[in-house]
């Protein structure tokens, strides 16, 4: 134990210095290959943290009881809070379909954002060609992970929108003439049709770029956070980085919430119309 602690400190210090000198690589490192597929350090982190998340949640929840224990109460308040936040945005019709995706996104992003703060992540590794190839890298500091989530979210958006709103409404919402036919003079109404078609085209482009904006926003924040922590740790390994760790805790929550809320809003824009009209 007496030898282990100094070794850990020495290793982490060396890693920090090496990292700080190189900066965090924008791309994940390929550690090895598994069945011919690349196994990167982000995939390893994703697996480890995901298993820990699932086991942790299952252990804290156990068999849910009407009078909750401490662990169940924490998860319950999280689920209840997200349900209360997301249901009005998505609408009651789409909510049962959208909730598994949205809560999955929130928990996954939150835990993987915070995974960069766990001691050892982004620290332990081996030196290769003069720079540190670390074994674990937060999932969201890899564009593959954020883009993958964004693509799944947009695919789910498409499926939910088509299923809840229907293809007819979907097309009308994008390209349809939104002017009131009864109140608008016919020539004006006809003139508005091509304009709305153009607006629809722009809307399609905007929708097509949603995965890009979603993924780059999350990636940029987490990657930036990793760089910040690495730089600060490199400059002064003890005490000084602590406020930045707290800052990253906050960024982790905010980014998870932003990603989830944006996907919820995208779904709600397509599915929450009838309920609004009903109100």
């Amino acid at each position, binding site marked *: 134990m007496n030898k282990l602690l100094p070794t850990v400190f020495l290793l982490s210090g060396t890693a920090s210095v090496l990292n700080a000198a190189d900066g965090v690589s924008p791309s994940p490192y390929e550690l090895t290959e598994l069945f011919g597929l690349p196994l990167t350090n982000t995939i390893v982190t994703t697996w480890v943290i995901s298993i820990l998340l699932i086991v942790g949640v299952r252990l804290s929840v156990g068999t*849910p009881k009407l009078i909750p224990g401490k662990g*169940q109460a924490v998860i319950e308040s999280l689920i209840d809070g997200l349900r209360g936040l997301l249901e009005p945005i998505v609408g009651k019709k789409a909510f049962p379909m959208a909730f598994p995706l949205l*809560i*999955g996104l929130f*928990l996954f992003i939150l835990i993987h954002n915070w995974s960069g703060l766990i001691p050892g992540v982004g620290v332990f590794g081996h030196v290769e060609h003069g720079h540190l190839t670390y074994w674990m890298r937060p999932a969201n500091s890899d564009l593959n992970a954020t*883009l993958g989530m964004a693509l799944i979210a947009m695919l789910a958006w498409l499926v939910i929108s088509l299923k809840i709103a229907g293809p007819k409404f979907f097309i009308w919402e994008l390209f349809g003439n939104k002017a009131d036919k009864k109140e608008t003079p016919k020539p004006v109404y006809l003139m508005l049709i091509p304009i709305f078609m153009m607006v629809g085209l722009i809307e399609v482009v905007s929708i097509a770029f949603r995965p890009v904006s979603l993924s780059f926003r999350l990636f940029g924040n987490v990657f930036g956070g990793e760089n910040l922590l690495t730089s600060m740790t490199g400059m002064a390994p003890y005490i000084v980085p602590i406020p930045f760790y707290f800052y990253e805790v906050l960024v982790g929550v905010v980014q998870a919430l932003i990603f989830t809320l944006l996907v919820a809003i995208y779904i709600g824009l397509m599915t929450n119309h009838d309920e609004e009209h009903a109100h």
Partner: protein
Amino acid sequence: MKAIFITLLLALSLPLGLVAADEAHAASSVEGKLHGVAEQLHADLAHAGESIHEEEDKLTMITEKFGVSLPTLIAQMVNFVLVAFVLYKFAVKPIAATLDERQQKIADGLQYAEEMKTQLAEAERERAEKVKQAAIDAQAILTEAREQSKEMIESKTQEAAAQAEAMIRKASEATELERQKMLSDVRQEVARLVVATSSKVLSRDLSDARSKLSPIPQPKNWLMLAKPHF
């Protein structure tokens, strides 16, 4: 992946090209309108082609820089889907069901409490009505009892008066009888005394009168003579 990005960039550049074409169209004269538009469009298309090539190069650079590759992307997508599924199936869903169950129980409890409250109010109202009715009944009973007692007092008073009168009358009659009896006794006593006296007088007189042979007077007349005056 690259194909998706190229398609997106193409889709983005299309409305921009159209806008540029519109501007060129407005600027050209009426005679050279068609010719100008054709030239402008041609130039724009050529420019767009160059831009696409440049963008493609940039895109390749971006994907290489950030290490975006299809196998890793798919692996991360699968990871996310698996985690989301497992979390939802084994944690979120049971907890959401428990939350709903608790919510239902709370709602039922509140509804039950509300019903109980209504029933309590109803019972309270009934009780108040019954108390009120009981007070009215008690008042009626009291009034009736008072009337009855008054009647009873009157009747008893009358009865007592009648009894007293009867007793007085009986007493008078008894007194009268007593007096009569006493009078009778007195008469008898007087008569006896008279007889005794008379007999004594007579026996003495006879002894005297025998010698004289004078008649003895009738006792009936004596009695009548001896009647006392009260």
